[in-house]
């Protein structure tokens, strides 16, 4: 899922302090799971903002809505009738949701309410770690299901490098060396011979280096 973190409330206040009607718009998907932009966080932010404005003797109407998703036309259309009633919308969705919202509601002020961080997993409650960099050409079949692109600091395809010691990466003693993990898992799978194969230079054109990307699937288009 897409992992996001809460934005400091001071930063949000700075953007919307001149508004009289504000909509806090949550998203029921990834940001709900990582507890940054779901219905609960919408409630907390709206309540805190209401009190902030009252404490500063200002009457501001703050409404709360949480959509199923903010990265699909059909769900964003649900606020079509009410969107123009607000001076600003604070979207607690990931960067995708905020941008899609801005595209659909061209004349509306939209502000992000979270910092979008990475594609990751919930390792434990309150701990999310990166697993995928969406490079567009998956190598996991060859690396025992552990991604060197996302988890090696150098994105090495033929690792480890000399900075790997005792299974940890030189950039951070708490960070596992991805290549150590790959070798350990290949060993456990009895496929250590796969480690002998050299990766050729990866085609990075499917990664961000090739500019903004798109997926066109004519088979599912209507």
């Amino acid at each position, binding site marked *: 899922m897409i992992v996001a973190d809460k934005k400091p409330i*001071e930063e949000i206040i700075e953007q919307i302090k001149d508004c009289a009607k504000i909509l806090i718009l949550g998203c029921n998907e990834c940001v709900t799971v990582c507890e940054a932009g779901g219905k609960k966080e919408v*409630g907390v932010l709206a*309540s*805190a903002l209401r*009190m*902030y404005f009252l404490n500063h*003797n200002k*009457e501001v109407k703050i409404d709360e809505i949480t959509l199923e998703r903010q990265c699909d036309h059909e769900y964003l259309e649900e606020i079509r009738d009410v969107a123009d009633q607000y001076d600003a919308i604070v979207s607690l969705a990931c960067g995708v949701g905020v941008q899609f919202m801005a595209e659909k509601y061209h004349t509306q002020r939209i502000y992000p309410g979270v910092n979008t961080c990475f594609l990751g997993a919930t390792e434990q409650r309150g701990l999310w770690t990166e697993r995928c960099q969406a490079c567009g050409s998956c190598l996991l079949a060859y690396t025992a299901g552990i991604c060197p692109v996302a988890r090696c600091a150098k994105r090495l395809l033929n690792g480890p490098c000399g900075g790997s010691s005792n299974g940890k990466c030189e950039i951070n003693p708490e960070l596992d060396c991805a290549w150590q993990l790959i070798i350990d898992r290949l060993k456990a799978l009895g496929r250590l011979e796969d480690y002998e194969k050299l990766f050729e230079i990866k085609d990075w054109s499917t990664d961000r280096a090739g500019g903004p990307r798109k997926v066109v699937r004519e088979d599912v288009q209507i």
Partner: protein
Amino acid sequence: MRLNYPASIRIIRVPCTGKVDVIHILRAFEKGADGVCVVGCMEGDCHFKTGNFRARKRVEQAQKLLDIIGTGGERVQMYNLSSGEGPLFARYAKEIYDKVKALGPNPVKGNKQTAA
């Protein structure tokens, strides 16, 4: 025992302080409470193991948020008690009452009337 504690304190029962979330504390202030006191079981004695530790964390989160928005984090406090400590509850109730009284009314309350 017939202990007395300040009459303005309203008790809200929850199954465990682990149920108390930041939003509950904020809503209390939004509705005009001058202070919120979360009373959980003794640390290590939670029937659900970590409920009171969770509550403490959430009280701390609420304190930070209330400081930022200008209400004042010192208006929320967490206490730990066992169910047999009636006199201590009365003492804590008086303590938070005095503390909140010294802080004055919740600024939201006064401004709500003037802003409306």
